[in-house]
């Protein structure tokens, strides 16, 4: 993919993000923050590759730490968000 191709993806994603996120009501902003936080853990992809294939010990150790931290971010973020939303949906249902 060329640079302009990537830029196009970036611009389109920014439009999508803007249109969707401005629609989210205030009372869901805290769960949104936590959920978006979890999505930013997508850097886990890079960590996984480095941790799994590190050729030197140092790189492997760093990769290990990176995976631990990124996983905490992803798993924790989604769970916290779920916990908050769960309380909302119980209300919504009743």
């Amino acid at each position, binding site marked *: 993919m060329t640079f302009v191709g990537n830029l196009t993806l970036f611009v389109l*994603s920014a439009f999508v993000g803007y249109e969707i996120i401005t629609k989210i009501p205030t009372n869901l902003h805290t769960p949104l923050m*936590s959920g978006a936080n979890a999505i930013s853990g997508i*850097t886990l992809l890079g960590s996984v590759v480095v941790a799994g294939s590190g050729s030197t010990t140092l790189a492997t150790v760093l*990769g290990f730490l990176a995976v631990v*931290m990124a996983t905490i*971010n*992803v798993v924790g973020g989604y769970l*916290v968000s779920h916990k908050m939303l769960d309380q909302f949906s119980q209300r919504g249902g009743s």
Partner: protein
Amino acid sequence: MTGVIGFLPESVLAFAYLIAGILFIQGLRDMTHPRTAIRGNKISSLGMAVAVGVTMLWFEILSPLVLLAALVVGTGVGTWLAITVETTEMPQLVGLFNGFGGGASALVAGAELIDLFNQEGAGALGADLTAAAAVAGIIGAITFWGSLVAAGKLHGVVNDSAVRYTGEQVVKAIVLLTALAGSAFLVVQPDLFGAAPLAGWIPAYWFIVAAASVLGVLLVIPIGGADMPVVVALLNSYSGLAAATTGFVLNNTALIIAGTLVGASGLILTVIMCNSMNRSLTNVLFGGWGEEAESEEMEDIYEGQIMSTSPEEVEMLLDTAQRVVIVPGYGMAVAQAQHAVAELADLLDENDVDVEFGIHPVAGRMPGHMNVLLAEADVSYERMRELEEVNPTFSQTDVVIVTGANDVVNPKANTDDSSPIAGMPVLNVSDARTVIVNKRSLSPGFSGIPNPLFAEDNTNMLFGDAKDSMQELVNQYEENH
């Protein structure tokens, strides 16, 4: 160098990443309504699972045990933190998680450089790679340390007042320039210390990370504790943009889409918070207030004007009220009073009092903070009213109970153009017949300015911790009904 399914054409990986991107988008779309939000969160996490799963199968994993151990540890810690957290501690936990994400970016960029250098020599470190690594390192380290400080301030383990000193901006600028100079070196000459024994560690990179770490701390320390949610949202936006930048270098669709979505989300939340406080982002980041609570002025306003009341008296007021509005604020979160407040509302409702919650968009310390707390305490969605909805109804309200809120009910925002909260929309509670303000003292709220509401004729102060006072009120009310 390929993994289990790495023999498939490249387009399969790209396609899987596209699927993950679609799942992230659909997940966010479902977040636009409370009823579908929980499903949205699941869809988004499914997207993450797809992206991570395919990546693990695609690339060669030389040390699967290390990877597995890291995943298990991370999942364990993340789950434990998420399960044991109190609802009131969520803001700092979100900040902490965000910091970990940034830290991971910084570490992984370094590990990648080390790996390449040791396998293929300095020649493998092209300018685009090192430049991207420098960006990831700087933003990652700022995010990590900035988020840690922010979480510490929110948790009360770091001094949460705005620490200001002369020459502050100059110091920050120097540190930033140091980090940028290091980046230039890294790009131009990645093997700066080619002959030294530690050359394989790529010292230039860690130099950048160190400078950025200092910068991260310096940037957040001077900002007051109550502005931390803005800082966390902004840092979240940064970490998303860092992920998108990495995606440009790796031609990775999933990173670009997901990173951009997070970047947009963080930025929009930041702007919304700043707008509802009627402050600019620059003001939040570089010129906080909070230092100027002039006590003389306070005494002037309050002197001889304060009437205090007791739970018994409030109970009698409630006894004859037709309509009651409860206005919660940061103090309710601190005192964990949400369950007592919810119980009070239920009791009133059972006795045919029309009871609602008036929720200010920046009450508490995160957007939607009060909604989350009240939802936890089983308050129904329909009973929570937003600012625009509830303001016109105060004139038909008999009793307003303000519990742990201060700035969001400060009439100075409307009347005094020179006050730091001037122009911020507030809840006009004094339109009601009687206002009960429950807090522990006359001390100011986050903005540090006195609140003339306390001195008004129809205001009665109910001093005490929010949880204790509300529980007492519940007990009194139950006794008499």
